[in-house]
């Protein structure tokens, strides 16, 4: 177990390092950031000076070395636009993003797993067919378009929900969250539903496939031969086996949700780090983009690690090596 954890830690570090190289290379080929920091009418001397301060006059490997050592020290530089540490900007907006991602994930799980279990346990049922067609439609819809339609119908026409913003927030354990106020929930619902759309469809389909596979197994029949009820068999024996592929997909979907949150946040003017990323891309605010990417990479490797551990808990056949 210990050896496994150490090995995984090294793998995680390797992935993070690879990401840092990629991020650095991409950033080096995208425009000259020096013009972001100097005045519009700066003289050549001023530009050269700024270039030296940013370290842009060095060779590429040297620049990467600076980049890496700065990363190690948590030193990401200041945002060109906000003139504040980029890390602070991102971290400040992280809770808002995690909030809508987690609510979306919860919605997806609550909707998708029971429907998927039903569809998998009753493959020929008309309701199952309806569920499956619906889920196929779900993965065929552009998520941002769904969000717009929700805004138009529920916010603009019916005025049931606010169309943008985060609403009231409360501080809890040092984190500002809107999940503690009714107004906050009122605001988060539409964006979270929008974001959950694709994930719901995918988790539903994986759950169904897993359940169908499991319900065919002999041990399900054997459990029924023991006298267990259909429900008892479904939840006592089927669900846990059927959940094994779902756990993996949850990990992957978390990544997708964070990525697609950029769009949802843009539509709903949700003040999260995704919207900040899009704004920073428009403004070529390099340090902010770098922090965002490195943070997201960190989140992913940690989530993947947790998923692997969950695996070993849910399936005793898998032992950590």
């Amino acid at each position, binding site marked *: 177990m210990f050896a496994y954890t150490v090995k995984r830690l090294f793998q995680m570090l390797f*992935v993070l390092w*690879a*990401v840092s190289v990629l991020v650095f290379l*991409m*950033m080096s*080929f*995208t425009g000259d950031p020096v013009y972001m920091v100097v005045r519009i009418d700066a003289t050549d001397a001023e530009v050269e000076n700024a270039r030296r301060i940013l370290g842009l006059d060095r060779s590429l490997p040297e620049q990467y070395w600076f980049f890496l050592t700065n990363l190690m020290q948590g030193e990401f530089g200041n945002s060109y636009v906000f003139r504040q540490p980029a890390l602070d900007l991102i971290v400040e907006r992280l809770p808002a993003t995690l909030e809508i991602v987690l609510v979306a994930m919860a919605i997806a799980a609550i909707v998708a797993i029971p429907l998927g279990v039903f569809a998998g346990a009753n493959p020929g049922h008309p309701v199952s067919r309806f569920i499956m*067609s619906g889920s*196929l*439609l779900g*993965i*065929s*819809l*552009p*998520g*941002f*378009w769904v969000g*717009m*339609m929700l*805004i*138009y119908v529920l916010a*603009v*026409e019916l005025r049931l929900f606010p*169309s943008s913003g985060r609403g009231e927030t409360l501080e809890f354990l040092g984190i500002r969250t809107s999940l503690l106020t009714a107004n906050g929930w009122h605001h988060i619902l539409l964006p979270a539903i929008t974001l959950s759309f694709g994930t719901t469809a995918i988790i539903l389909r994986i759950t169904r496939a897993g359940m169908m596979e499991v319900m065919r197994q002999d041990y399900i029949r054997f459990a029924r031969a023991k006298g267990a009820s259909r429900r008892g068999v479904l939840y006592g024996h089927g669900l846990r086996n059927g959940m094994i592929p779902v756990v993996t997909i949850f990990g*992957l979907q978390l*990544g*997708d949700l*964070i*990525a*697609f949150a*950029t*769009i949802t946040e*843009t*539509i709903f003017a949700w003040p999260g780090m995704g919207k900040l*990323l*899009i704004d920073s*891309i*428009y403004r070529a605010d390099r340090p902010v*983009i770098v922090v965002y*990417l490195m943070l*997201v*990479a960190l989140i*992913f*490797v940690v989530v*993947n690690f947790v998923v692997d551990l969950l695996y070993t808990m849910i399936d005793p056949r898998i032992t950590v090596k």
Partner: protein
Amino acid sequence: MAATFLKSQFVFNWRRNPPAILGTLILVVCTGLVVFGPFLVRQNPYDLTQLNLMDSFLPPAWLDGGNPAYLLGTDGQGRDLVAAIVHGARISALIGLSAMALACTIGTTLGLIAGFYGGRVDALIMRVADVQLSFPSMLIALFLMSAFGTGIDKVLIALTAVGWVVYARTVRGSTLGEVQKEYVQAARVAGLSNARIIVKHVLPNVLTPLIVIATVQVGTFILIEASLSFLGVGVPITQPSLGLLIKNGFDVLFSGLWWTSVFPGLMIMAMVFGINLLGDFLRDELNPRLK
């Protein structure tokens, strides 16, 4: 040949599968619109001389104030929405298909190389694939586009960069299986060159699973492209895809001008839904194990 195909199990099953028929119908209609649509609409939506600002933001023809000349209404520049959608769908479909073709070619080649030669080449390709797979496609594409700037060619590069991995992994897996088999061993003993063995013997045997992947990927690519364009980092405004049309519609949605975003969205939905319906059918047909 055609006659045998029509009598095959494949066609037999297709005719008994309403979702598959629906998907095919949708795709046939969409293909018709994409290929012939631009010749059927009266207006070239991007020739400014053909646009009349007096006609801007007309609602669909069946609503009050609608103009029968503009069935689905017009946008802010008096552009016929039908014409805009037909042209936009063409760009979306073209990007989806070309990016799929590129990703499939590159991914398959790398997968064959990795699976056939093994060793360091294999390790390198698969390590890159692993790292890439731990990130969502959308994020990678977004990141690449933010670096490249807008442009159809750049969207293609970004989508290809995102999409090759799945082919490489699948092909490598099946290649590893094929290389073990006797006919490959026999070809080696017979002194055939590696390149010839790969192309003549291995490749045809690893292609089947790719059909489903490729089909579904076109839909995925259309959606990713739409998302990128919606965010303003996809296609340029001179060549608007459906995603960009929706973005333009979004800017006026709060004024109640819903049709400028609803109809392009429905078009994307129809295209991707048709692809996915067909993909589901192919998956069941080509993977007997899952039956």
